[in-house]
């Protein structure tokens, strides 16, 4: 039996030093989380539901009659499902193995939808960003912040600790949280109902005629900004805190509010009183300030 011993030439060594690291890099990349892109043709007013325990969800409107979902799971142990049922697209993140902890169940999504889409989003932690979607929207999170821009429809937002920001939103806004703060800027909504426990609330939007604006918290600050041309009927009450006001209100002829007996309260009409503004806090500060 004979044995042969091979030795590499210098050229072969050079080739090997180039190819082997390249192969190693390729194998490492292919073993990582897989980015996935899916497209779904939809009709008018499609419904898109997203269930994600953790991660960033970005939804943008576009002019195509289709939904595009680009998902990036955090690891191979996390799977992403996106499927179409009629005019509804359901997107969800779930564990690929039983060893995944809830904190590792993370996936990021970039989703494009028709602008008349209706959205239902559940994202425990991470962040939710939605822009230019005009359909109704329901967003529920635990710690994830919610950031909406140029949206419309009936917006229902519920967080536990996540903050909420709404810029140039129209339609109706109902938002509730326990420790999240709200920032409502350049709103054109005729119905705003915002309630949080320890968070702050900033409202810097239009008071539309016949609109109702009800802001409530337990502590923290409620700040409302108004312009000289605004027209609203105001009631502001802080049970244990203070109310600061820069609006020249016309007092009511007949104090009708039972709350006026308690705490620091303020009732009156600004201009014709077309919108109804109700601000209440348990021990927080309420500021009604002139817009710069």
């Amino acid at each position, binding site marked *: 039996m004979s044995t042969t011993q091979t030795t590499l030439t210098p050229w072969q060594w050079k080739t090997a030093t180039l190819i082997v690291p390249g192969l190693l890099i390729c194998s490492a990349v292919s073993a990582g989380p897989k980015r996935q892109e899916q497209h779904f043709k939809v009709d008018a007013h499609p419904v898109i539901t997203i269930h994600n*325990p*953790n991660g960033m969800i970005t939804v943008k409107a576009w002019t195509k009659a289709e939904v595009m979902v680009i998902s990036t799971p955090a690891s191979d142990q996390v799977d992403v499902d996106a499927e179409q049922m009629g005019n509804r697209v359901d997107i969800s993140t779930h564990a690929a193995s039983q060893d995944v*902890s*809830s*904190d590792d*169940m993370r996936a990021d999504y970039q989703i494009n939808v028709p602008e008349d889409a209706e959205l239902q989003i559940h994202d*425990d*932690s991470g962040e939710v960003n939605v822009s230019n979607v005009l359909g109704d929207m329901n967003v529920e999170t*635990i*710690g994830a912040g919610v950031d909406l821009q140029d949206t419309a429809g009936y917006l229902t937002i519920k967080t*536990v*600790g996540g903050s909420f920001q709404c810029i140039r939103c129209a339609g109706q806004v109902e938002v509730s949280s*326990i*420790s999240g703060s709200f920032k409502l800027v350049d709103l054109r909504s005729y119905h705003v109902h915002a*309630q949080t*426990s*320890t968070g702050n609330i900033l409202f810097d939007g239009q008071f539309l005629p016949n609109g109702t604006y009800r802001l*409530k918290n*337990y502590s923290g600050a409620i700040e409302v900004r108004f312009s000289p041309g605004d027209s609203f009927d105001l009631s502001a*009450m802080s*049970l*244990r805190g203070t109310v600061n006001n820069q609006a020249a209100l016309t007092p009511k002829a007949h104090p009708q509010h*039972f*709350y006026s*007996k*308690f*705490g620091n309260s303020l009732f009156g009409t600004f201009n014709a009183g077309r919108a109804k503004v109700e601000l*209440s806090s*348990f*021990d927080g500060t309420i500021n009604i300030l002139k817009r710069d």
Partner: protein
Amino acid sequence: MASMTCRDFHHELDKWMDGERPANAQSHLKSCVHCGALVADLSAIQSEAETWDSLPSEPPERIWTALRTQLESEGLIEDPHPETPEPRSIGWWNDLFAKFPRPVLAGAYLAALVAFAFAMSGTRGNHVKDVKWLDGSTIVSSPLSAQLDSAEVATVASMRQPNSAVAASLHQNLAIVDNYIALCEKSVREEPENEAARDFLYDAYQQKADLLTQMSERGETGQ
């Protein structure tokens, strides 16, 4: 014996159904198909009605037993005989709700509890006499608060991953709500006629019920 017409027989129908069977009526019935059919129908209805009379006018005892057991287990009424043995299995009650997930039931139950408290404590925004309000407040909010507390204990125990970031956030916010419930309850005690304080208190209860529902869901799903 004078013969009977159908009209005559109809006039005597009540007596016939009561058991009076004069000979001329019997003779008419033998010869008249229509009246025979009418009597047959009425007899069938009468015999069916007699079976209804034999049914008990009240639900059976087991219904009351099951209801009492459920109300006792929820702390809404007290067991008058605490030394009695364990109640029988309330299978029908469990079967009734078995198809619903527990978080749904818990949420619905807590929401119903808060709604019930609202309803019982008088209309929000109305002037309520102090005495009436105090009575209502004591009767209604005490069991409500106790129910929420016991739901909290059960829910926290059911959470499978208490150390996750989400669970930590839920616990942290639950502590915030509990703190406000305590503050609001203190305000209500100090100013019983203060409806604003009461509104804040019930809102806090509602928040706690919502939060416990969310925690319960995570206990079920393990998320």
